[in-house]
């Protein structure tokens, strides 16, 4: 490709070229800051329209980084979203003054996608109210800045629940619908984005549009899993279901391959309501299997449990003792596993979150554990999303990369049931091309544990994982932000150019979430 040089901070002819992040030399992971031209006029226009813009360092500093903590940027100002009309005013002014707008929900990105490198940060959590619950239709209409946890709090009082959401209490509905959202029931119910029935979207040029598969379907297809490129989701209608606590079972494996085989066996046969793999490196591999009802659990026990090759906790402990007794030089690893188990396991079994042996709320349990035992100043979580048949290879190759770069790490693997009628939604998303029935995703998360790694080290690690994806024809969940140099390599020029043309049409000044993809 012949890509002319452009001034740092300006949008070049191809925003997803391999060198698209026009950053500071060597610090390739931070885009340069927007130069602020047009800001005073933009702010004046907003204030005239009654929109509050906070410009103090303390207000802006709340958003200086995201959950990844490796990308840093300061917006020129912050607007807390209050209504679709207000967001529309903001986007129209942003187009006119060419001011970048970064929409942010829970800020749980890791590649700087929700970090504003200048311009205005639009904090969607200001729009976080549940609007209506329709029991007859089993749907909820909610403002999209709501945290899934906030939605759960409200639904639970009515004996209801959402279908699936990320296992993190501070993910927002809008942010999740824009990227996918994976739960441990996604192998059965699909990604969180698939439960959206209709959306209210403010387009980059400031129109407020209702869309669904039957109304403004093209916009709906682009906004769902669209990484915030084609509009700001302000309201969402989602499917809901009756609430049930779940009964959880854990099976332990000493190889990834067996655990993945068993995970896919369960998914193919609809043998469980929830399934996923969580590991401590590749030594302690935990397949979790859970059920909403006693009937489903009984059917699993009768038909499938004996086919699983995993052990119970005690059996696994015996295997481990045998394994490390034959490899005394790996005693350090054994001690780490033991220490980690002692710290983490009780979190998953805290009595206040269980009633009569059933887990009350999986997101509370997992999210607490994740923040307490996985969270750290820097988090890089590169991932690979593949078709079912390529998954074992992808995980094993990614695991080898983790072993090379970090002493300790965790893998998290889940299946995602695909909807044939949503093929258009999945275009240029984490769903890998060619996937049918299920896609599988694996997150590779190093345990930082107080150690200090350079951003270059993190970046090399992520590149090594993502190179596997290019090689295998996979996709990624986190391909935006600092990883957008992979977009053309993994999706191909034809698809990317088609989306870029749509983006240019929808967002003439290219102002909305510009450091995410385009």
């Amino acid at each position, binding site marked *: 490709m012949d890509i002319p040089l452009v001034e740092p901070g300006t949008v070049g002819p191809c925003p997803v070229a391999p060198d698209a992040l026009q950053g500071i030399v060597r610090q390739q992971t931070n885009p340069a800051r927007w130069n602020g031209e047009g800001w005073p006029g933009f702010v004046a226009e907003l204030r005239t329209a009654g929109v509050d813009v906070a410009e103090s360092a*303390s207000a802006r*500093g709340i958003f200086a980084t995201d959950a990844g903590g490796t990308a840093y940027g300061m917006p020129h100002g912050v607007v807390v979203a209050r209504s679709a009309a207000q967001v529309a005013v903001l986007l129209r002014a942003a187009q006119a003054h060419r001011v970048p707008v970064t929409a942010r929900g829970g800020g749980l990105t890791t590649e700087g996608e929700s970090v504003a490198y200048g311009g205005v940060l639009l904090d969607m959590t200001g729009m976080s109210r549940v609007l209506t619950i329709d029991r007859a239709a089993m749907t909820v209409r909610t403002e999209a800045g709501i945290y899934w946890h906030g939605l759960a709090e*409200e639904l639970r009082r009515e004996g209801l629940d959402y279908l699936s959401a990320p296992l993190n209490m501070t993910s927002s509905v809008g942010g999740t619908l824009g990227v996918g959202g994976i739960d441990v029931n996604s192998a059965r119910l699909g990604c969180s984005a698939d439960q959206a029935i209709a959306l209210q979207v403010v387009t980059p040029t400031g129109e407020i549009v209702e869309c669904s598969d039957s109304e403004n379907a093209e916009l709906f297809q682009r906004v769902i899993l669209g990484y915030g490129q084609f509009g700001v989701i302000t309201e969402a209608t989602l499917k809901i279901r009756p609430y049930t606590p779940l009964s959880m079972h854990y099976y332990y494996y000493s190889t990834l391959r067996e655990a993945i085989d068993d995970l896919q066996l369960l998914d193919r046969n609809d043998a469980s309501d929830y399934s996923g793999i969580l590991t401590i490196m590749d030594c302690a591999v935990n397949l979790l299997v859970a059920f909403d009802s006693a009937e489903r659990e009984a059917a699993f026990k009768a038909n499938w449990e004996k086919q699983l090759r995993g052990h119970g906790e005690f059996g696994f402990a015996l295997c481990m003792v045998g394994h490390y007794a034959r490899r005394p030089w790996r005693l350090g690893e054994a001690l780490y596993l033991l220490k980690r188990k002692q710290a983490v396991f009780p979190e998953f079994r805290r009595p206040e979150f269980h009633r009569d042996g059933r887990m009350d709320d999986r997101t509370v349990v997992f999210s*607490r554990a994740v923040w307490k035992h996985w969270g750290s100043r820097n988090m890089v979580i590169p991932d690979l999303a593949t078709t079912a048949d390529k998954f074992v290879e992808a995980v094993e190759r990614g695991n080898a990369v983790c072993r090379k770069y970090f002493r300790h790490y965790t893998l998290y693997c889940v299946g995602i049931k695909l909807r044939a009628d949503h093929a258009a939604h999945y275009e240029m998303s984490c769903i890998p091309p060619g996937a049918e029935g299920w896609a599988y995703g694996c997150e590779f998360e190093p345990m930082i544990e107080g150690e200090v790694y350079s951003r270059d080290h993190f970046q090399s690690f992520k590149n090594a994982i993502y190179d596997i994806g290019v090689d295998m024809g996979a996709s990624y969940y986190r391909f935006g932000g600092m990883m957008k140099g992979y977009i053309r390599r993994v999706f191909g020029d034809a698809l990317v150019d088609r989306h870029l043309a749509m983006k240019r049409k929808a967002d003439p000044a290219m102002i909305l979430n510009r450091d995410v993809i385009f």
Partner: protein
Amino acid sequence: MYSSAHPREYPACSGCSLCRLVCPMWRARRDPRYSPEGIAKARQNGAEAAELAEVLDACTLCGACDPVCPEDIALTDMIVDLRRELELPPDLAVLQVGYQQAAADASAAPAGALLLPGAALHADAGLLARVEALLGLRAAQDDGADLAVALEIGGDIDPVRKRRFLAGLEGRSLVVGDGLLLRWLRRELPGARLQGLGQVLGNLPAIRRRIASADFYVIEARAYHADQPRLVAHYDALRKETGCAINLDLQRIAVPPRASGYPGLRMGPSAEDLAQAGWMLHGRQPARVLVENPAERDLLRRVAGVPVLHLAELADA
């Protein structure tokens, strides 16, 4: 966890936002500045107390943020420390002087186990007498109400006053009505047997057997959050035994009915308080609301539409 440094202070905030989920100040305003995260991040960006005055004033000191912070940051301590740098709110300074005078005039506490009722209960003589009778305890005339105000507004505590107050309590069994004072006493008197008034009343058979499955039970947030890992089991047992609903959220954090600063000191609910109390009861249809904290009765009466009783009123309800 972000770092293993101690003490756990604002630099350790990773911005996870978990504290926002439980913060009534944030819920009422949906503005990130009005949250513990907002305060910690503002401090990380060099903000001084004066710049944060409005936010600091809005905090209810309900303590809900402390147990949920995965970084174990002492968030309410952070807020009170910042309040210390602000000018004392004049109305509350006057209130504190009044309590100081009352403490100076108080007669010595009776021997043995003691009730420190707190200002709200002290202000309701009939209810106080009922609580004393139920517990078989006498209330101390000097129950540290001035100290509770100082703890709330971040005022200085005169060391002589502190010594005198604590000396009178050393080695006793104490039932404490004020959640902030209870938390402070736990630190100052690690060897004392200290219990919150709500917990003690809830354990009395005469009260417990009158709590019904149709009741909505409102835990006093400050006392609960100061000892949440232990008390969560107490309230779970109460729920199981009586079948009542409790103001605990999915994280087992108590939803406080107020959302504006200095609850119980400044009387008269704000619009934020009414919205927060409404949210607490949203989606519930109780026959009665039961409160541990008498200062919350009036507010809840305005939004509940059903009888609101203090636990002590249950004994002969």
